[in-house]
């Protein structure tokens, strides 16, 4: 489980996170949602240590990340898989090399074992046989799946996904969502997904945290989010015309 307690983060005079606390449970898809500029990505980057928190505690299964030195932090990071918004694949490496990269860096596996693991991960994201392609030769959806394959190569305990569906068509988004959900349950990992996409929230969100003005404004599950009367959440969830129609249908019990 990942826990953040009373964290504050500011860039200059601009306070992004204000005394924010949250828990991300193991074996569940924990979603961080909220409007743009409310601090979702900053929160994720604070959790993985890409940003230093000004105050507060970030702990991984009881290990206080904020108090660890760089070496100890790197040890925890080896247990983290991260899917970035833009995939962040190494563009000079092939698909296979991208997936094998963390294995080469941190394990003593033979080349054959690494190749087997890379093939297994590629198979898991339905991209068997795409080993020798370069990231530039892959579509956006394929790149996301390759990034997921790279993220799970080291059998992580924690998986972070920063807007996994951005720039993808609805059908591919569902594929990615399902993949994240399956991997989370299959390997019993703590998954944290940052998303704007209400479809994803309803599809895969076991635990949902709504960030507003840098604070944990609301938390609950996918059933409670559509029933809540919290104004900010209603504004966010039913912002699109489509969701608005669904709401009126629900209100009319149709």
């Amino acid at each position: 489980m990942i826990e953040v307690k009373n964290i504050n983060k500011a860039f200059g005079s601009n306070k992004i996170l204000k005394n924010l606390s949250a828990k991300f449970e193991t074996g569940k898809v924990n979603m961080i949602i909220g409007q743009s500029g409310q601090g979702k990505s900053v929160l994720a980057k604070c959790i993985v240590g890409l940003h230093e928190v000004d105050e507060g505690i970030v702990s991984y299964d009881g290990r206080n990340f904020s108090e660890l030195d760089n070496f100890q932090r790197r040890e925890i990071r080896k247990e983290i898989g991260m899917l970035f918004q833009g995939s962040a694949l190494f563009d000079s490496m092939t698909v296979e090399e991208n997936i094998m990269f963390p294995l080469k860096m941190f394990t003593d596996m033979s080349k054959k074992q690494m190749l087997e693991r890379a093939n297994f991960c590629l198979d898991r994201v339905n991209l068997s046989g795409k080993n020798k392609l370069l990231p530039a030769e892959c579509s956006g959806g394929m790149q996301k799946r390759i990034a997921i394959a790279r993220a799970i190569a080291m059998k992580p305990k924690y998986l972070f996904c920063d807007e996994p569906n951005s720039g993808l068509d609805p059908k591919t988004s569902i594929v990615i969502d399902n993949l994240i959900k399956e991997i989370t349950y299959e390997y019993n990992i703590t998954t944290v997904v940052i998303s704007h996409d209400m479809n994803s929230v309803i599809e895969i969100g076991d635990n949902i945290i709504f960030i507003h003005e840098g604070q944990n404004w609301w938390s609950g599950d996918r059933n409670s989010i559509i029933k809540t009367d919290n104004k900010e959440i209603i504004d966010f969830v039913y912002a699109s015309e489509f969701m608005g129609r669904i709401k009126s249908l629900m209100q009319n019990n149709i």
Partner: protein
Amino acid sequence: MKVLGNIGKYFLMLNIIFSKPEKWRIFRVRLMNEIETIGIKSLPIVTILSVFMGAVISLQTAANMDSPLLPEYTIGFITRSSTILEFSPTILSLILAGKIGSNIASEIGTMRVTEQIDALETMGVNSLSYLVLPKIAAAILFFPIMTIFSIGLSLIGGWIAIVSSNLSTTETYIFGLRSFFVLSNIGYALIKTVVFAFVIVSISSFYGYYTKGGALDVGRSSTQAVVISSIVILICNFFLTQMILL
């Protein structure tokens, strides 16, 4: 204040770069790749520049020798001295700051804005050591070789220009090259080259690594890397000359 802040940040960066690589095997592979990128791929431009600069130095020297009291072998002597003392270590480094510096800053800058560096960090990789240390090692190893190569080619370029223009004979030119030769000048040139190699790679990496924003900012970092490396090379050149030659 911003300049002082950047200087502090630069030295902190160096401290992180010079930490033990995660795996020596991977470091060796990356070192070989960087030797190819930074060193071997620069050889064509070094060859062209050196030959023509040597030729121009010798022609200009010949053109300015009005006094009959000046011996003809002065052409070879001046060509050799200019090449060893200044052209091959300094001017070549300034030109390579443009080629290699912008390449490094844009490569690392692009990795930064496309979150590839963040990806390395979240995996637990010391991104600075992984990306920059092999580049510094490759430059420090290969720049002296390039300098020696450049000195040789410049002297050949000077010889071709002088002999083909009938301004002197091969024997006189070679006599000039060998006259008043000070071996320690080669050491001076190589020391300068090593310092300049370090300056180019570390400063360009600094600007690339701390790029913020998008494609435009990568271009800006690239330009800053070249400008600042060139200025630092000239300043280091002055102090090294004072320390070693005087």
